[in-house]
């Protein structure tokens, strides 16, 4: 049975609902290389280790089935690994380069991780010259995650990207707990979030996604505010504020004390947020938070997500995304789902 896997996220056409979560995937090159290696002869041999390798096997199939062929330098056809995705969401970009936070930046927690990267990025200009030309050849929609210290900086990033045809959509990060100015300060205040959204809306006709923080009393309030301000879609959730302590030094493990929790540990929080926001607004949602298997993807869609992003699970297993692309279609076929959009918001009362 063939399944229609395509969805539209606020005007962004995605051939399937899966994308990367910003900041866990850079611009995709590193993962593309590993996915490509998996489709080469080498993984074919590696799978010879036997039954234990079913993950790699299905991932191999996934990339083979989902990726697009393209001619390489030698004229032979090569696979474009990222093209198996509905979209690629790249690392948060700011107008000027940001150096990120000092000290330890990541650590594992029970079924999750804390990060305090601090939105390190080379700035929008470097992205346009170093990564975008490559992304433009990968046959996949590109969602650019945008950050700024001020509303003006967010706008400047969008102005710069408007002239780049390879950019498909914007995701405004108003929810990062790891920077002092900007970031989450916009996302926890409905009127500030609305103002920022309206300002960016005026600059672009491209799909505008606003990414919300769970670190608020009522996430639906912020969701309604950005909907009214002209957002095309909402993504949620960004990381949950948390901390870790080094018992030997008796100091916070992270220099800023606070860090962002992600991974399976936050999935129930994320699912609840998606469910509530879906009931509160009419916008399509990009759900994320702890997704690692097909059941997670389907749960997010049933709760109301139109598309689903995978972040931390890429670190656990770099083959997660291509595997999920294949397994999601298999799941739909075996459950008799003809069009994946049937799932969106399909949870009963």
């Amino acid at each position: 049975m063939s399944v229609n896997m395509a969805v539209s996220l606020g005007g962004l056409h995605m051939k399937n609902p899966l994308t990367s979560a910003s900041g866990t995937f850079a611009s995709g090159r590193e993962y593309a290389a590993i996915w490509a290696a998996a489709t080469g002869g080498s993984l074919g041999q590696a799978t010879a280790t036997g039954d234990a390798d079913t993950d790699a096997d299905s991932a191999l199939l996934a990339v083979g089935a989902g990726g697009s062929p393209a001619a390489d330098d030698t004229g032979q056809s090569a696979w474009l690994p990222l093209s198996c995705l509905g979209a690629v969401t790249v690392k948060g970009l700011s107008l000027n380069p940001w150096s990120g936070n000092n000290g330890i930046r990541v650590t594992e927690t029970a079924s999750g991780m804390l990060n305090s990267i601090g939105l390190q990025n080379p700035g929008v200009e470097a992205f346009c010259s170093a990564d975008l030309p490559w992304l433009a050849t990968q046959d996949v929609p590109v969602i650019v995650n945008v950050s700024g210290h001020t509303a003006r900086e967010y706008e400047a990033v969008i102005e710069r990207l408007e002239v780049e045809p390879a950019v498909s959509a914007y995701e405004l990060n108003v929810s990062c707990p790891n920077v002092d100015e900007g970031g989450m300060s916009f996302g926890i205040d409905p009127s500030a979030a609305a103002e920022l959204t309206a300002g960016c809306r005026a600059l672009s006709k491209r799909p505008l996604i606003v990414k919300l923080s769970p670190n608020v009393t009522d996430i639906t309030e912020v969701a309604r505010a950005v909907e009214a301000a002209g957002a095309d879609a909402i993504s949620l959730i960004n990381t949950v504020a948390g901390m870790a302590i080094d018992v030997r030094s008796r100091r916070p493990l992270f220099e800023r004390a606070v860090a962002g929790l992600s991974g399976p540990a936050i999935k129930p929080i994320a699912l609840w947020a998606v469910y509530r926001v879906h009931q509160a607004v009419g916008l399509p949602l990009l759900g994320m938070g702890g997704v690692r298997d097909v059941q997670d993807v389907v749960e997010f869609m049933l709760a109301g997500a139109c598309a689903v992003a995978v972040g931390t699970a890429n670190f656990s297993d770099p083959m997660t995304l291509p595997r999920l692309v294949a397994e999601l279609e298999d799941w739909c076929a075996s459950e008799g789902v003809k069009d994946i959009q049937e799932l969106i918001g399909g949870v009963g009362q």
Partner: protein
Amino acid sequence: MGCMTVCSKVWVIDNEPVADGLWRLTLGQLSGIEAVRPGQFIQLRLGEGSEHILSRPFAVSSATTLTGASPGLSVTFFYQVVGRGTDRLARVLPGEFLQLLGPLGNGWQPPPTTRRPLLIGGGVGFAQLNWYADFFPDAEEVHLLIGARNKAWVHALTGWPSLYGPEEMHDVDVLLTSRAAVPTKRHTATDNGELGHHGTNVELMAQLMEKTDFDYVAACGPLPMMRQVARLAQERNIYCEVSLESHMACGIGACMGCMISTTAAARRVCADGPVFNAWEVLW
């Protein structure tokens, strides 16, 4: 770029304690991986499920090519049990499968003209240097220096005891012939004085530098040790490489989790390192 990084499941040939708090792990049939260089590392997933969602980085301490019925690369690691993840790893049994991502990182890059390298390791950081010592076919002599807490650690990490005569010889230069037919001199320091110099490997390094004109130093061990080694080397204008550690998530250069500061820029330990020119590291 070197060898392709592959994610695959590999089986545990052996996983056993070799000294107090120190374990040796041997993994087999990495048939997707063609070659590993000294200084490179791998990311090892600690079991299935979502208890441990981040892999742990470990330096490869040696690699051998298996032939016969199940050919492929076999790699060995030494690890110290320091927290929840390594404690979990210590409970993995031979025959189990683990997810491995690798090879990762740049590896050592000694100047091709190196004649008298000093390879100095502290604790488990020494594990890969024995192997690395085989990679100087054109050197006059290779010096290996281990600093460890006690005799059991030195024996476990070096495999030297069987090659030695009387134990006292640990503090004199012992001339031996390595596989590459380059004379290798081996030096030992222990914290408790059970073997070799009673004190730190850095103290012993300072003594050795009075006698030998090293033209390259490679250091792997605790950060304070590497910082001191780097300073000693720089004082004498000797090119020095260090293998750094940092908390990391992706291991492939995507997440910006493992940055360190260098004179040039902030660099990723996983993808730009873990081996760095010691002079460029902002200690």
